[in-house]
């Protein structure tokens, strides 16, 4: 049996919580929230199914989660464990399919088009994959199988928890029609609100809408919406082939302080640490940045961003840190800061113009950093840091987009938060 375009979307069930349970089986079945202590700032990175029953969901402030479910076990999380299990899952996935793209730490797309001879029926293949992941990692996942990435993703969502769902080719629109428009990836609160004004609640309503009207109301995004309603991959990165998308257009890292900080030295140390993390990601992608930007959010949530273009593109910490600190010193208003961010932009795959005056120094740094990165790969991100960043040492918080996901591209951004 030959398969038409066949996409698997593999989504780990409550990934962070499930990994925590592997290390601490007593958590099993309890409401668990990963992200930090309930009195900390920051958001929920993951919640167990038991916690979700109380209305806790990811991206919700920790304090709000605590109000909904005070009896939950709140954990800081262990990013290293999650990366390790993500790698294990990835290794299993690559055994199954040649084209694997990790969309985040706990979900992946597989292109199994034309793999019928190997696996027989798609459902059979999905079942085997599901078994293999359970046996080799002890983790549950849900798998969506469809002719497009978009429908496969919706499918895995509908199959949760611990299920498999296959939408037969040709039945995509019928499968989507009764679902809420917000099930479509990319449709958030704002779009849903505007669609409701047009009387659209279900995907089926959307599919019946005139494309001209959608285009008029939503521009290019409207056409993508129409395509999505029919079950096609349309718009943004859903257009691309798995594992063949564009490199990121920016790389960034942000940190929210548990308590607002007004001390220059502490803020600068944090910026150094964030810059190191951004530089590390740039090197991981093999990219060089020409523009650096900082983001400052004060206690009152007023936020500024300021950018600087460098004389030479770089991904060397020692080159980036002075520029970042210069921006900070020029623009910080000496008020307490809630959040700091460092962004690298104007990314190029080659260094471009070399420096005449600093060339030898940059070369030496480059060699040192190659060694440092290898150590970090083996012993963790905090094994080596710049001296100035030591004081800014904060625990990396759990989030879904850490550095160096295999085959991860496409959102045009590579951002992290801590």
């Amino acid at each position: 049996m030959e398969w038409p375009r066949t996409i698997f979307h593999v989504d780990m069930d409550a990934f962070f919580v499930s990994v925590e349970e592997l290390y601490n089986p007593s958590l099993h079945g309890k409401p668990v929230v990963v992200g930090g202590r309930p009195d900390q700032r920051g958001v929920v990175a993951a919640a167990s199914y038991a916690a979700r029953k109380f209305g806790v969901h990811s991206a919700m402030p920790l304090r709000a989660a605590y109000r909904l479910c005070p009896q939950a076990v709140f954990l800081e999380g262990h990013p290293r464990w999650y990366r390790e299990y993500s790698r294990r899952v990835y290794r299993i996935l690559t055994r199954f399919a040649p084209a694997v793209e990790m969309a985040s730490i706990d979900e992946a797309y597989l292109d199994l088009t034309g793999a019928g001879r190997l696996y027989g029926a798609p459902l059979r293949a999905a079942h085997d994959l599901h078994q293999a992941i359970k046996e080799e990692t002890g983790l549950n996942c849900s798998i969506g199988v469809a002719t497009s990435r978009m429908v496969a993703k919706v499918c895995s969502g509908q199959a949760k928890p611990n299920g498999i769902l296959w939408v037969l080719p040709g039945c995509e629109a019928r499968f989507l029609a009764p679902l809420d428009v917000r099930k479509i990836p990319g449709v958030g609160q704002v779009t849903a609100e505007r669609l409701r004004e047009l009387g659209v609640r279900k995907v089926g309503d959307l599919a019946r809408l005139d494309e001209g009207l959608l285009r008029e109301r939503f521009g290019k995004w409207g056409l993508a919406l129409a395509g999505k309603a029919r079950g096609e991959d349309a718009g943004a990165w859903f257009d691309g082939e798995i594992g063949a998308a564009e490199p990121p257009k920016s790389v960034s890292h942000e940190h929210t302080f548990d308590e607002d900080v007004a001390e220059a030295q502490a803020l600068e140390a944090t910026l150094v640490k964030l810059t190191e993390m951004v530089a590390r990601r740039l090197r991981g992608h093999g990219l060089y940045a020409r523009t650096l930007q900082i983001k400052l959010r004060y206690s009152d949530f007023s936020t500024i961003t300021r950018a600087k273009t460098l004389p030479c593109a770089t991904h060397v910490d020692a080159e980036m840190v002075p520029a970042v600190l210069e921006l900070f010193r020029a623009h910080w208003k000496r008020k307490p800061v809630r959040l700091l961010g460092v962004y690298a932009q104007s990314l190029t795959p080659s260094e471009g113009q070399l420096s005449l005056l600093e060339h030898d120094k940059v070369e030496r740094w480059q060699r040192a950093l190659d060694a440092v990165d290898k150590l970090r790969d083996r012993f963790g991100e905090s094994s080596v840091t710049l001296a100035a960043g030591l004081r800014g040492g904060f625990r990396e918080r759990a989030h879904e987009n850490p550095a160096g996901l295999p085959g991860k591209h496409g959102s045009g951004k590579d951002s992290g938060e801590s």
Partner: protein
Amino acid sequence: MEFTVNRSDLVRELSLSQGVVEKKTTIPILSNVLIEASGDGLQLTATDLELAIECSCPAEVKTAGAGTLPAKRLLDYARLLPDAPIHFRFTESHWANLTCGRARTKIAGMSRESFPEVPGRPPALAEIPAAVLVKLINRTAFAVSVEESRFALNGAQLLLAPERLTMVATDGHRLALCEETGDFGAAAAHKALIPKKAMMELLKLLHDDDPEAKVEFSADENHLFFGAGRRLLVSRKLTGNFPDYERVLPAEHPNRVALSREEFRAAVERVAQFSDERSHAIRIGFSPGEVKLHASLSDTGSTEETLPAVYDGPEVQVGFNAQYIMDFLRAVGEGEEVLFLFRDSNSAGELRPAEGDGLSYRYIVMPMRI
């Protein structure tokens, strides 16, 4: 104050100082030119507090004195007057009454008291032929950094030694060094950073001078003085440490190739049309008997040109910013040939005129990784 001056003299000298007249009106007096009449001439002074230019011209002085007038307005107006003597009479209230031919004009001025004091000129440290100074500036000024944050690179370094005069500029990517040997009357070595703007204004002052003219150079703790006949440019010194450039001057290059200056220039200019707008990256390939220039833009097109060249070294491909190469080829002067010296795609290359005109000229340029 009352005097009569020739319109063409006034226009010529006034236009020399326009570059330092403040265009914005944050400090109104800086938009004005200071006019001082005494003996048989006028002295005209303009300043933006970084630079000051003093010029003078003959005039028939009836009553000596001083006053200030808006420099741009005065020049724009005087340009339109017939070529005849202009009579100036300043009133107590700082107005100037002009008479020229049938025109009767009043221009509002400001008191000379509020005009900034130009620092006094110390004794000369050296006497430099104007022609030499012009060459030094023309061959280095383009390499001065335009990035404001690297302020020590926002000018060229002037090195005065008893037996030679050196000017060197770099923006961190390339470096231009021009040197003239000779006795310029310097008793001791002297080092100073000249802001780029001072270099460009100096070129204007020296523009119409005769080839024999000399420039008297002097300096105090914060200022540099260039006196050229009846004209004087005073510049604030740039502060900061100019990098130790001798460290980056290549001691030797294993490879060298001679190229026709004009052919090379024309080819680089053409090939650069297909280089990235921002990086201007082109590839130069050296192989026995020829030099190949190549550039490509993924969605626009690509081009390649081959120049015959006397070269028998190894095959080397190096990326360069075409703009940097063009800057040198425009500044190098009229010689037939230029020399391209290099090691590999990772080391600084060097351009030089093949046959000098007495001055030593080295241009070091760092490659690009494309």
